[in-house]
């Protein structure tokens, strides 16, 4: 009989296997696999094993957290929809929608500091939610697959942003490829602790989002009905729950998380409105983050930090002579192992059965 292994065990095994496969490929291609760990530890702690005399450089762990911020949010977004039985693959569009709204409030509205920043973030959340409304609405009331609508809206957002930004926002006259800088009243501050890192207060907003996700999903009646709809929509309909309304709201809340990611990236990392030529892939990365995180709040936080670590380690890899693609490779391997979790738990069963048998034999 297949025993159910917890999502946590599966994810941890997937991570270990992913890193091992990365090592294996390095070894096969004649590089030193231990360098992976040197790089990861550097990004994680700022301590370089190869150069212990340099001590700890805080910039690396801060950059790690910085690069985790948007994907934790997009991970929350995908996870929230998924728990209601929806697949939110529209993160890219919602992200850009959030960016447009953020730039609008930042550049066109005059507000005092802090309030201005918060207004930008709220506007981005609203814009993300509005962008996600259509796929949710069509799914709920017309039974149109949300994936198709989401993907179409991703491109719609990409080109809409180009036109909207060039038409309505003051454009930077030197590059002609972005807006002018945001006013000083729009800022997430700097928590770089004297290093060159752009780490900022956005991280607190991310943590608040994680807490909100957890509370809404696990503790409120609304979350209860969303989970019921996600597990068995016919069953929740029988119970008198408002499935259609839930579908729309769940999509919109998911969109809001991604919209916030857009604002935090623009304010914290750029400081101006962007004209996107291609997707940033934060939305798509959110799918992996949600998958590995088991679609619950703390899991998404942990897996977001993990994928952030991989992204932040890319430069370290290169410094140590490892191609930076190894980071993508490890991430892909982790996702594959989570995706084949039934196989993984089958192997776990075999192992634990063998251990049991040995114990029985020893006892006898």
């Amino acid at each position, binding site marked *: *009989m297949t025993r159910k292994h917890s999502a946590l065990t599966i994810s941890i095994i997937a991570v270990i296997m992913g890193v091992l496969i990365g090592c294996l490929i390095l070894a096969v291609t004649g590089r030193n696999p231990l360098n992976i760990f040197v790089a990861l530890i550097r990004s994680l702690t700022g301590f370089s094993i190869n150069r212990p005399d340099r001590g700890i450089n805080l910039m690396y762990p801060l950059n790690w957290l910085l690069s985790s911020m948007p994907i934790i949010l997009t991970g929350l977004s995908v996870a929230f929809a998924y728990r209601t039985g929806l697949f939110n693959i529209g993160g890219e569009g919602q992200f850009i929608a959030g960016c447009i709204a953020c730039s609008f409030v930042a550049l066109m509205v005059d507000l005092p500091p802090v309030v201005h920043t918060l207004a930008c973030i709220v506007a981005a959340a609203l814009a993300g939610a509005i962008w996600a409304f259509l796929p949710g609405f069509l799914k709920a009331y017309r039974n149109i697959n949300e994936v198709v609508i989401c993907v179409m809206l991703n491109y719609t957002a990409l080109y809409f942003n180009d036109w909207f930004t060039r038409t309505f926002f003051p454009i930077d006259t030197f590059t002609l490829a972005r807006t002018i800088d945001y006013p000083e009243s729009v800022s997430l501050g700097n928590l770089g602790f004297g290093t060159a890192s752009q780490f900022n207060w956005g991280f607190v907003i991310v943590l608040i989002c994680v807490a909100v996700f957890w509370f809404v999903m696990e*503790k*409120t*009646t*609304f*979350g*209860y*009905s969303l*989970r*019921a709809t996600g*597990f*068995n929509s*016919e*069953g*929740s*309909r*029988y*119970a*008198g*729950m*408002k499935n259609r309304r839930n579908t729309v709201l769940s999509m919109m809340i998911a969109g809001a998380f991604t919209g916030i990611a857009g604002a935090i990236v623009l304010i914290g990392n750029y400081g101006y409105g962007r004209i996107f030529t291609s997707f940033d892939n934060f939305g798509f990365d959110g799918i992996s983050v949600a998958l590995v995180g088991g679609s619950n709040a703390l899991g998404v936080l942990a897996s977001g930090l993990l994928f952030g670590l991989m992204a932040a380690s890319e430069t370290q890899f290169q410094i140590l002579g490892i191609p930076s693609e190894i980071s993508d490779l490890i991430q892909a391997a982790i996702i594959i192992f989570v995706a084949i979790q039934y196989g993984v738990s089958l192997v776990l069963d075999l192992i634990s059965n063998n251990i049991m048998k040995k114990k029985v034999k020893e006892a006898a």
Partner: protein
Amino acid sequence: MAYAIEMLHITKDFPGIRANDDITLQVEENTVHALLGENGAGKSTLMSILFGLYQPTSGVIKVNGKEVKVTDPNVANDLGIGMVHQHFKLIECFTVTENIILGMEPKTGFRTVDMKKARNKVIELSKKYGLQVDPDAKISDITVGMQQRVEILKMLYRNANILIFDEPTAVLTPQEITELMSIMKNLVKEGKTILLITHKLKEIKAAAQKCTVLRKGKCVGTIDVASTSEEQMAEMMVGRVVSFMVDRPEAKPKEVCLDIEKLNVKGSKGTLAVKDFSLKVRAGEIVGLAGIDGNGQTELAYALTGMTKVDSGTVKFSGTDVTNASIMQHYRHDMCHVPEDRHKHGLILDFLLKENYVVHSYTDSPFAKNGVIQTKAIDEYAARLSEEYDVRSGEGINTITRSMSGGNQQKAIIAREFDRNSKVMIVVQPTRGLDVGAIELVRKKIVEQRDKGAAVLLISLELDEIMNLSDRIAVIHNGTLSGLVMNKNVTENEIGLMMSGGLSKFDEEACV
């Protein structure tokens, strides 16, 4: 007489529980041998051991007189043991033939599947054993009865000589059950041995020669079916005298609570499934709706509970028009609904048991305060329901509902619906798949609700149940009301005729 299977002194321990305690089961060749026991008596564990899914803690298994070690299901297959599962394991979008040969496909010279050969083999087997199937039909298009025949053919195709039927009649209509009984007799005539796992005494009487009874993990005994009465078997299984007849004092009906007027409802095919159907149910009475499966009962229940739109006509709860109101509005007007399909509608299987107890009431005080779930209140409520309705589950109220046995899942639904003490009760197939003890409990609770003043509409395919519980009996045939009679003035035979459309009878006393 030689034994096909012998399981001698089987004991199986799980952490904290002894599921099988020194059980001996000997099945003679060429017979139908029944294995009788309530949910949780250890039947499934014993069969899992025979199938190699579990290893016994102690005990010996012999097949055809030879001692064997069944280490995994493949070994059981090689020994010629095949199982027809309660929930069919068929691929919906494959044809009958494709399902039967799956995993053991005949190959052509080019290593592709030889469909012609496969089809002929299926036809040959179906003729030989009298198992009528359409080899080219898709599983999703055929009846449940035919799906079961496909499962049986799957085993025969794999040369199984010993066939285990796990609760085979739970999903069948009365006609299909009769047919299955004759199929089993046919199989035995052709040299097969059948082990029938069930808790339905009637079927044991109809099909089996010997019967082994389990209770709480122990073997109570093996009896000769012909010389033992149903009552005796029930007593062995439950451990006390069971009454099939519920003590049901004369009803004292009061005001009309459920008023159905000229109802027309469309079915899934777009044609009218319920036609001009009118019926009144009063507080303090049980009206049983009898009918052969597929005569509009499902659509009627959906329409009454708000799950489908009504085409025309009205439904009133205690005078309030609820026609085409939302499902939530129906509940607000004091309705409870025991749904026909407990997996699709009745339960959120991946929820914990306690979460399933509050699917209607999770927003109400004391289960929620300002939109926040009050875990403690729910825990207390859930514990009380489980206790009162004898719902058993491995980890108490924190058990994932999917892992509970079918009988306990149904009891959980009954507990949740009945505990609301609603005025209008739409109860569909309340005892399907339950064991004798549980059936007794549920039937008693239905009468209890009636006596508390509920108007109960009982929709059931089991005529026994209708005759047993109803004060008045309504009969539906082809979507129309073909009879409405007082229970005391009618025979089973007459009801049967009304169900098939051969008779239309309306008692003056029954037509209120």
